[in-house]
Protein backbone atom coordinates (compact mmCIF):
# COMPACT_ATOMS: atom_id res chain seq x y z
CA UNK A 1 0.00 0.00 0.00
CA UNK A 2 1.26 3.48 -0.83
CA UNK A 3 2.25 5.53 2.17
CA UNK A 4 -0.20 8.32 1.36
CA UNK A 5 -3.08 5.86 1.15
CA UNK A 6 -2.00 4.16 4.38
CA UNK A 7 -1.98 7.50 6.22
CA UNK A 8 -5.31 8.64 4.75
CA UNK A 9 -6.97 5.38 5.73
CA UNK A 10 -5.55 5.60 9.27
CA UNK A 11 -6.83 9.18 9.63
CA UNK A 12 -10.31 8.20 8.43
CA UNK A 13 -10.48 5.35 10.94
CA UNK A 14 -8.68 7.39 13.63
CA UNK A 15 -6.60 4.24 14.17
CA UNK A 16 -2.89 4.54 13.51
CA UNK A 17 -1.83 1.00 14.37
CA UNK A 18 -1.54 0.17 10.66
CA UNK A 19 1.19 2.84 10.33
CA UNK A 20 2.97 1.67 13.48
CA UNK A 21 2.94 -1.88 12.08
CA UNK A 22 5.46 -0.65 9.50
CA UNK A 23 7.86 0.62 12.18
CA UNK A 24 9.16 -2.38 14.16
CA UNK A 25 11.14 -0.14 16.52
CA UNK A 26 8.04 1.93 17.45
CA UNK A 27 6.27 -1.28 18.48
CA UNK A 28 9.39 -2.53 20.26
CA UNK A 29 9.37 0.43 22.68
CA UNK A 30 5.54 0.82 22.74
CA UNK A 31 4.61 3.99 20.84
CA UNK A 32 0.96 4.89 20.11
CA UNK A 33 -0.62 7.86 18.30
CA UNK A 34 -3.78 9.77 19.20
CA UNK A 35 -5.16 13.15 18.28
CA UNK A 36 -6.61 15.77 20.64
CA UNK A 37 -7.54 19.44 20.37
CA UNK A 38 -3.89 20.49 20.38
CA UNK A 39 -2.89 18.08 17.62
CA UNK A 40 -0.98 14.82 17.45
CA UNK A 41 -0.15 13.27 20.79
CA UNK A 42 2.43 10.49 20.95
CA UNK A 43 2.51 8.12 23.92
CA UNK A 44 5.24 5.79 25.11
CA UNK A 45 3.77 2.94 27.17
CA UNK A 46 5.20 1.91 30.52
CA UNK A 47 7.42 -1.04 29.62
CA UNK A 48 9.75 -2.56 32.23
CA UNK A 49 12.16 -3.33 29.36
CA UNK A 50 12.54 0.40 28.62
CA UNK A 51 14.28 0.98 31.94
CA UNK A 52 17.88 2.12 31.72
CA UNK A 53 18.67 2.70 35.36
CA UNK A 54 17.04 0.07 37.61
CA UNK A 55 18.07 1.79 40.85
CA UNK A 56 16.30 5.16 40.48
CA UNK A 57 14.44 3.59 38.49
CA UNK A 58 14.43 5.65 35.29
CA UNK A 59 13.73 5.09 31.61
CA UNK A 60 16.80 4.64 29.39
CA UNK A 61 17.77 8.02 27.92
CA UNK A 62 18.15 6.32 24.54
CA UNK A 63 14.54 5.09 24.67
CA UNK A 64 13.31 8.64 25.37
CA UNK A 65 15.41 9.88 22.44
CA UNK A 66 14.17 7.05 20.21
CA UNK A 67 10.56 7.79 21.17
CA UNK A 68 11.02 11.49 20.34
CA UNK A 69 12.66 10.65 17.00
CA UNK A 70 9.78 8.29 16.13
CA UNK A 71 7.28 11.02 17.15
CA UNK A 72 9.02 13.65 14.99
CA UNK A 73 9.11 11.38 11.93
CA UNK A 74 5.44 10.44 12.36
CA UNK A 75 4.39 14.08 12.89
CA UNK A 76 6.16 14.99 9.65
CA UNK A 77 4.51 12.16 7.70
CA UNK A 78 1.05 12.76 9.17
CA UNK A 79 1.05 16.45 8.30
CA UNK A 80 2.70 16.21 4.87
CA UNK A 81 0.59 16.65 1.73
CA UNK A 82 2.79 14.17 -0.16
CA UNK A 83 4.21 11.93 2.58
CA UNK A 84 7.53 10.17 2.13
CA UNK A 85 9.62 8.25 4.64
CA UNK A 86 11.74 10.93 6.33
CA UNK A 87 15.42 10.09 6.70
CA UNK A 88 17.12 11.28 9.85
CA UNK A 89 20.02 13.72 9.36
CA UNK A 90 20.62 14.75 12.93
CA UNK A 91 19.01 14.61 16.31
CA UNK A 92 19.86 16.66 19.37
CA UNK A 93 18.31 16.08 22.80
CA UNK A 94 18.46 17.94 26.11
CA UNK A 95 17.52 15.92 29.18
CA UNK A 96 15.71 18.16 31.64
CA UNK A 97 14.33 15.90 34.36
CA UNK A 98 14.69 12.23 35.33
CA UNK A 99 12.07 10.12 33.58
CA UNK A 100 10.26 7.73 35.90
CA UNK A 101 8.82 4.40 34.79
CA UNK A 102 5.41 5.73 33.77
CA UNK A 103 3.66 6.81 30.56
CA UNK A 104 5.58 9.42 28.58
CA UNK A 105 4.03 11.84 26.10
CA UNK A 106 5.41 13.90 23.22
CA UNK A 107 4.22 16.71 21.00
CA UNK A 108 6.02 17.90 17.91
CA UNK A 109 6.26 21.25 16.25
CA UNK A 110 7.17 21.38 12.57
CA UNK A 111 9.30 24.51 12.54
CA UNK A 112 10.00 24.35 8.84
CA UNK A 113 8.88 21.96 6.17
CA UNK A 114 10.98 22.54 3.07
CA UNK A 115 11.17 20.55 -0.15
CA UNK A 116 14.18 18.57 1.01
CA UNK A 117 14.60 19.31 4.71
CA UNK A 118 12.20 19.38 7.67
CA UNK A 119 13.14 20.99 10.99
CA UNK A 120 11.10 19.62 13.90
CA UNK A 121 11.21 20.21 17.64
CA UNK A 122 9.82 17.74 20.15
CA UNK A 123 8.75 18.17 23.77
CA UNK A 124 8.38 15.14 26.06
CA UNK A 125 6.77 15.03 29.49
CA UNK A 126 5.22 12.61 31.97
CA UNK A 127 2.86 14.09 34.56
CA UNK A 128 2.81 17.75 33.56
CA UNK A 129 3.23 19.15 30.06
CA UNK A 130 4.68 22.33 31.63
CA UNK A 131 7.44 20.29 33.28
CA UNK A 132 9.11 18.54 30.34
CA UNK A 133 11.54 15.66 30.83
CA UNK A 134 13.31 16.37 27.53
CA UNK A 135 13.34 18.61 24.49
CA UNK A 136 14.74 17.61 21.11
CA UNK A 137 15.43 19.15 17.74
CA UNK A 138 15.83 17.17 14.57
CA UNK A 139 16.38 17.52 10.83
CA UNK A 140 14.97 15.04 8.32
CA UNK A 141 15.77 14.59 4.67
CA UNK A 142 12.59 14.28 2.59
CA UNK A 143 11.63 13.49 -0.92
CA UNK A 144 12.02 9.78 -1.55
CA UNK A 145 8.60 8.47 -2.56
CA UNK A 146 7.49 5.34 -0.76
Amino acid sequence: MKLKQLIETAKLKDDYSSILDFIPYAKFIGVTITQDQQGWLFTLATEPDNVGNPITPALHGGVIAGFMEVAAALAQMLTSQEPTIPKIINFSIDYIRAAGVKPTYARCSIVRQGKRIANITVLAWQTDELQPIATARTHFLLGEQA
Partner: protein
Amino acid sequence: MDNKARLAQANNFLQILPHCKKLGMKVVTASDGQLTVELPYNPDILGMDTEGYVHGGILTTMMDTVCGFAVTAALPTPEFCPTLDLRMDHMRRASIKGPVFAWAECYKITRNVCFTRGYAYQDDPENPIVHCVATFVRSGKTWGKGGFVKVGSEDSLL
Protein backbone atom coordinates in the same frame (compact mmCIF):
# COMPACT_ATOMS: atom_id res chain seq x y z
CA MET B 1 42.40 -1.65 37.00
CA ASP B 2 43.61 -3.51 33.89
CA ASN B 3 41.58 -3.59 30.70
CA LYS B 4 40.43 -7.17 31.19
CA ALA B 5 38.96 -6.27 34.58
CA ARG B 6 37.41 -3.10 33.12
CA LEU B 7 35.76 -5.18 30.38
CA ALA B 8 34.36 -7.68 32.90
CA GLN B 9 33.10 -4.90 35.18
CA ALA B 10 31.48 -3.01 32.28
CA ASN B 11 29.73 -6.17 31.03
CA ASN B 12 28.47 -7.05 34.51
CA PHE B 13 27.09 -3.55 34.86
CA LEU B 14 25.51 -3.58 31.37
CA GLN B 15 23.63 -6.75 32.26
CA ILE B 16 21.75 -5.03 35.11
CA LEU B 17 20.38 -2.35 32.75
CA PRO B 18 17.06 -3.86 31.53
CA HIS B 19 16.89 -2.13 28.14
CA CYS B 20 20.50 -2.93 27.24
CA LYS B 21 19.99 -6.52 28.31
CA LYS B 22 16.86 -6.83 26.17
CA LEU B 23 18.79 -5.53 23.15
CA GLY B 24 21.55 -8.09 23.75
CA MET B 25 24.23 -5.41 23.93
CA LYS B 26 27.69 -6.37 25.15
CA VAL B 27 30.91 -4.50 25.78
CA VAL B 28 33.66 -5.85 23.50
CA THR B 29 36.59 -3.51 24.30
CA ALA B 30 37.30 -1.40 27.37
CA SER B 31 40.26 0.73 28.33
CA ASP B 32 40.90 3.92 30.29
CA GLY B 33 37.97 6.15 29.25
CA GLN B 34 37.22 4.29 25.98
CA LEU B 35 34.80 1.49 25.20
CA THR B 36 33.20 -0.39 22.32
CA VAL B 37 29.71 -1.91 22.56
CA GLU B 38 28.28 -4.48 20.13
CA LEU B 39 24.61 -4.73 19.23
CA PRO B 40 23.45 -7.92 17.47
CA TYR B 41 21.12 -7.70 14.47
CA ASN B 42 17.47 -7.90 15.49
CA PRO B 43 14.49 -7.46 13.09
CA ASP B 44 12.43 -5.93 15.95
CA ILE B 45 14.48 -2.72 16.01
CA LEU B 46 14.21 -1.66 12.39
CA GLY B 47 12.88 1.63 11.10
CA MET B 48 10.08 2.26 8.61
CA ASP B 49 11.14 0.37 5.53
CA THR B 50 11.65 -3.17 4.39
CA GLU B 51 15.35 -3.01 3.66
CA GLY B 52 16.67 -3.78 7.12
CA TYR B 53 17.90 -0.45 8.41
CA VAL B 54 18.33 -0.21 12.16
CA HIS B 55 16.19 2.64 13.56
CA GLY B 56 17.99 5.86 14.51
CA GLY B 57 16.59 5.60 18.04
CA ILE B 58 18.50 2.37 18.59
CA LEU B 59 21.72 4.05 17.47
CA THR B 60 21.00 6.88 19.96
CA THR B 61 20.43 4.26 22.67
CA MET B 62 23.77 2.64 21.83
CA MET B 63 25.60 5.97 21.85
CA ASP B 64 23.99 7.13 25.12
CA THR B 65 24.99 3.82 26.69
CA VAL B 66 28.56 3.67 25.40
CA CYS B 67 29.25 7.37 26.13
CA GLY B 68 27.89 6.91 29.66
CA PHE B 69 30.07 3.84 30.15
CA ALA B 70 33.10 5.75 28.83
CA VAL B 71 32.46 8.31 31.59
CA THR B 72 32.40 5.56 34.21
CA ALA B 73 35.59 4.07 32.76
CA ALA B 74 37.33 7.47 32.89
CA LEU B 75 36.36 8.51 36.43
CA PRO B 76 38.66 7.50 39.28
CA THR B 77 35.62 6.13 41.19
CA PRO B 78 32.37 5.08 39.49
CA GLU B 79 29.82 7.86 39.86
CA PHE B 80 26.21 8.25 38.70
CA CYS B 81 26.32 10.74 35.82
CA PRO B 82 22.99 11.35 34.03
CA THR B 83 23.08 12.51 30.42
CA LEU B 84 22.75 16.29 30.11
CA ASP B 85 22.54 16.42 26.33
CA LEU B 86 23.40 14.37 23.29
CA ARG B 87 23.67 15.06 19.57
CA MET B 88 23.66 12.52 16.76
CA ASP B 89 24.77 13.11 13.17
CA HIS B 90 23.61 10.38 10.81
CA MET B 91 26.03 10.18 7.89
CA ARG B 92 24.61 7.07 6.31
CA ARG B 93 22.34 4.20 7.20
CA ALA B 94 23.28 0.84 8.61
CA SER B 95 23.28 -1.15 5.39
CA ILE B 96 23.80 -4.81 6.19
CA LYS B 97 22.03 -7.30 8.39
CA GLY B 98 24.92 -7.60 10.81
CA PRO B 99 25.91 -6.27 14.20
CA VAL B 100 26.47 -2.57 14.89
CA PHE B 101 29.41 -1.39 16.96
CA ALA B 102 29.54 1.83 18.97
CA TRP B 103 32.77 3.33 20.26
CA ALA B 104 33.09 6.29 22.63
CA GLU B 105 35.67 8.11 24.68
CA CYS B 106 35.41 10.49 27.58
CA TYR B 107 37.92 13.15 26.57
CA LYS B 108 37.51 15.66 29.38
CA ILE B 109 36.32 15.55 32.98
CA THR B 110 35.77 18.68 35.03
CA ARG B 111 34.50 19.00 38.60
CA ASN B 112 30.88 18.91 37.40
CA VAL B 113 30.73 17.78 33.78
CA CYS B 114 32.10 14.90 31.65
CA PHE B 115 32.53 15.41 27.89
CA THR B 116 32.29 12.46 25.50
CA ARG B 117 32.35 11.75 21.77
CA GLY B 118 31.90 8.61 19.75
CA TYR B 119 30.66 6.95 16.60
CA ALA B 120 28.83 3.83 15.45
CA TYR B 121 29.94 1.63 12.57
CA GLN B 122 29.45 -1.79 11.04
CA ASP B 123 32.39 -3.14 8.97
CA ASP B 124 34.75 -0.21 9.00
CA PRO B 125 35.36 2.25 11.87
CA GLU B 126 36.73 4.67 9.22
CA ASN B 127 33.29 4.76 7.58
CA PRO B 128 30.93 5.41 10.51
CA ILE B 129 27.13 5.40 10.39
CA VAL B 130 26.72 8.09 13.03
CA HIS B 131 28.84 10.50 15.00
CA CYS B 132 27.82 11.61 18.48
CA VAL B 133 28.78 14.10 21.18
CA ALA B 134 27.27 13.91 24.65
CA THR B 135 27.80 15.55 28.02
CA PHE B 136 27.10 14.07 31.43
CA VAL B 137 26.67 15.73 34.82
CA ARG B 138 28.54 14.40 37.86
CA SER B 139 26.14 13.73 40.73
CA GLY B 140 28.68 12.94 43.45
CA LYS B 141 26.66 9.79 44.07
CA THR B 142 27.31 6.17 43.27
CA TRP B 143 25.53 2.83 43.43
CA GLY B 144 25.34 1.51 46.98
CA LYS B 145 23.30 -0.47 49.44
CA GLY B 146 19.64 0.51 49.15
CA GLY B 147 20.11 3.02 46.32
CA PHE B 148 22.46 5.89 45.61
CA VAL B 149 25.11 6.79 48.15
CA LYS B 150 27.82 9.43 48.28
CA VAL B 151 30.95 8.60 46.24
CA GLY B 152 33.61 7.13 48.55
CA SER B 153 31.13 6.20 51.29
CA GLU B 154 31.43 2.77 52.89
CA ASP B 155 27.97 1.80 51.60
CA SER B 156 29.24 2.08 48.02
CA LEU B 157 29.03 -1.18 46.08
CA LEU B 158 31.52 -0.13 43.38
